[in-house]
């Protein structure tokens, strides 16, 4: 393999996009209003498109002729390295929006940094994805504010969403030898400012939304090491159904 750390890093980004895209796709036909049904499936499509670019490139780096379909649809549960946040169930619309906001607020500054990667293809994927992610973050931020600073019921429910999902946010900033090596090689720019920017976005939006960040500091992680929540197996069985039932099928 040309660069194992790069392969592993691309899987991390690709799996996050793929799994969140799959979750959002579950809303198709079930959105609370038509416009949001369409918005969530549009965002899903962007994320799945980004996942295809990332996983295809991971396959090139790996050099074993695995493309985005093989990597995305034919690995076993413990081989997926997405963060636990993105596999959490959709819940109600507020839960979905809160999960999306925590993720978008991280992805935007990350892509802004990755545009400067010394790896040309990673930089190109980031440049393309950044334009889409700006729209996603605007959409999720506005909904968090609308629901938080909305009616008594919407406020209470979206505060509950935040209380439930907050424990998964820290894993977005998980790093280990993979990131360290890539930073050393100049492929990853300095990622330390991303958390600062994420915190400032999150604080700003929550204050507009009159929402309180939970006082407890529980942190859940494991996804990056292939340890997933119970929900994940169910998600995979749907995601992988066609390839498992009809091996190597193509559209």
């Amino acid at each position, binding site marked *: 393999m040309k660069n194992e750390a790069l392969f592993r890093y691309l899987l991390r980004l690709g799996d996050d996009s793929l799994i969140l895209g799959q979750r959002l796709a579950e809303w198709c036909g079930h959105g609370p209003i038509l*416009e*949001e049904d*369409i*918005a969530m499936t*549009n*965002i899903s*499509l*962007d*994320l*799945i*498109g*980004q996942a*295809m*670019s990332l996983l295809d490139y991971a396959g090139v780096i790996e050099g074993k002729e695995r493309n985005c379909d093989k990597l995305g649809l034919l690995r076993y549960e413990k081989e997926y390295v997405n963060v636990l946040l993105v596999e959490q169930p959709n819940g109600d619309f507020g839960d979905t929006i809160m999960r999306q906001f925590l993720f978008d607020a991280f992805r935007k500054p990350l892509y802004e940094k990755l545009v400067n990667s010394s790896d*040309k*293809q990673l*930089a*190109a*994927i980031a*440049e*393309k*994805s950044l*334009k*889409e992610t*700006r*729209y996603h*973050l*605007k*959409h999720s*931020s*506005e909904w968090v*504010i609308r629901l938080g600073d909305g009616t008594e019921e919407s406020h209470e429910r979206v505060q509950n969403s935040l209380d439930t999902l907050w424990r998964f946010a820290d894993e977005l900033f998980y790093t280990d030898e993979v990131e360290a090596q890539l930073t050393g090689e100049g492929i990853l720019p300095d990622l330390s400012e991303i958390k600062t920017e994420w915190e400032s976005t999150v604080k700003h*939006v929550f204050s*507009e939304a009159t929402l309180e960040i939970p006082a407890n500091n529980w942190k859940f992680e494991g996804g990056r090491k292939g340890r997933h929540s119970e929900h994940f197996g169910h998600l995979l069985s749907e995601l992988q159904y066609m390839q498992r039932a009809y091996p190597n099928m193509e559209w």
Partner: protein
Amino acid sequence: MVSKEQIYNWLEEVSDPEIPVLSVIDLGVIRDAKNIDGEWLITITPTYSGCPAMKTMEEDILSKLKTKGIDTARVELVLAPAWSTDWLSENGRVKLREYGIAPPEHEVDKSVLFAAPTIVPCPKCHSKNTRMVSQFGSTACKAMYQCNDCQEPYDYFKCLK
């Protein structure tokens, strides 16, 4: 030998599968055409990462070239530089408006939360008294608008830079 210009002229006959009034040239997704040792390499770039029309465009391009007698050609997808609505041709903007889709305004999207949405004139009555219904529309590249004067609901080909 066939010229690059000739290839571009032929590609004017290949339409965007989702907005058939636009050709792939109007859309600005064709980035290059080169002849390498007798084989034509057509470079295209996606409008959005997940645009489901790219595969169809690739097939349509190859089959169009075949009807023109070009048998050895292939299409390569590149991501950089990333597609921008600035690449839509002037001709394409006129065609969009006639088709009932408002073309992109030359304006960078405001990232300010709840900023007043871009003013997009109604493609039917040209009124500027319109409102955005949703930032996301029937395809990845469009937003939904409605005219407050003639009530026409319409698509806006949203700005991406």
